[in-house]
């Protein structure tokens, strides 16, 4: 299921807001894994992990294989990249400002020293 623009981004960020789900994504970044394999390092029950996987799947961050027994989970890099793009735009917004602020602060420190000493 594809959600339109902002709604998709909301689902993605809501999914990313949980530390267990972020840890699952990190694990999947190094290759696909089954629910059992994912449950192991987290000391969580399989149903608990399955719930997290459902949220991630709905957000488009992972996909599940069709193999009925194993249903391996795979990271959907595109969705994560979209979330990253969004953050990148926000970062750019501030980076230019802060670069100029660095220069201004240098100037202020010098003036401050002259007055102080």
């Amino acid at each position: 299921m594809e959600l339109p623009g902002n709604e998709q981004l909301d689902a993605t960020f809501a999914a990313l807001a949980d530390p267990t789900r972020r840890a699952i994504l990190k694990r999947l970044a190094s290759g696909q894994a089954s629910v059992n394999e994912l449950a192991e390092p987290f000391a969580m029950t399989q149903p608990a992990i399955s719930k997290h996987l459902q949220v991630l799947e709905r957000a488009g961050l992972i996909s599940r294989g069709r193999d009925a027994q194993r249903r391996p989970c795979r990271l959907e890099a595109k969705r994560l990249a979209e979330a990253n793009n969004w953050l990148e735009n926000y970062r750019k917004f501030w980076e230019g400002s802060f670069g100029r602020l660095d220069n201004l602060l240098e100037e202020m420190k010098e003036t401050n020293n002259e007055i102080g000493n």
Partner: protein
Amino acid sequence: MLNTGTLKVTTPTDREIVLTRVFDAPAHLVYKAFTDPELLKRWFGPHGWSLTLCEVDLRVGGAWRYVLKGPDGTTMGMGGVYQEIVPGQRTVHTESFDDYPGDSVITTVLTEHDGKTTLTATARYESKEVRDAVVESGMEHGAAETYDRLAELLPTLG
């Protein structure tokens, strides 16, 4: 350990954005640069934009207002009210854009260590839609969907 100049952006919840940045200056100077209109005019705004109007009534209940002008002449107005002020350390203020509905509350905290100052600005939006609108306003969408950037993002998610 303090990594000067690296801006970190995280989204701890779906209604918040947190900026973290270390400046190589004591907190009182960073505070001054964030609250003095004449100083704000010299640095505030994304690349190519300048602050044409900057009014700051720095007291609890006092208003602030900025108007930014873009390279193509577009103007963008924003403003709000100060809710909390601890000089040199912490401010809480509301923020809204003229062209977008909804308020956000910005909590800015300055922590000084060895002459360097860590700025943590937490923006809390009343809705996810407002947060998205703020970010998308006047900003182009990058298209690159590379694994390089994915690799960059993953450590920050920890």
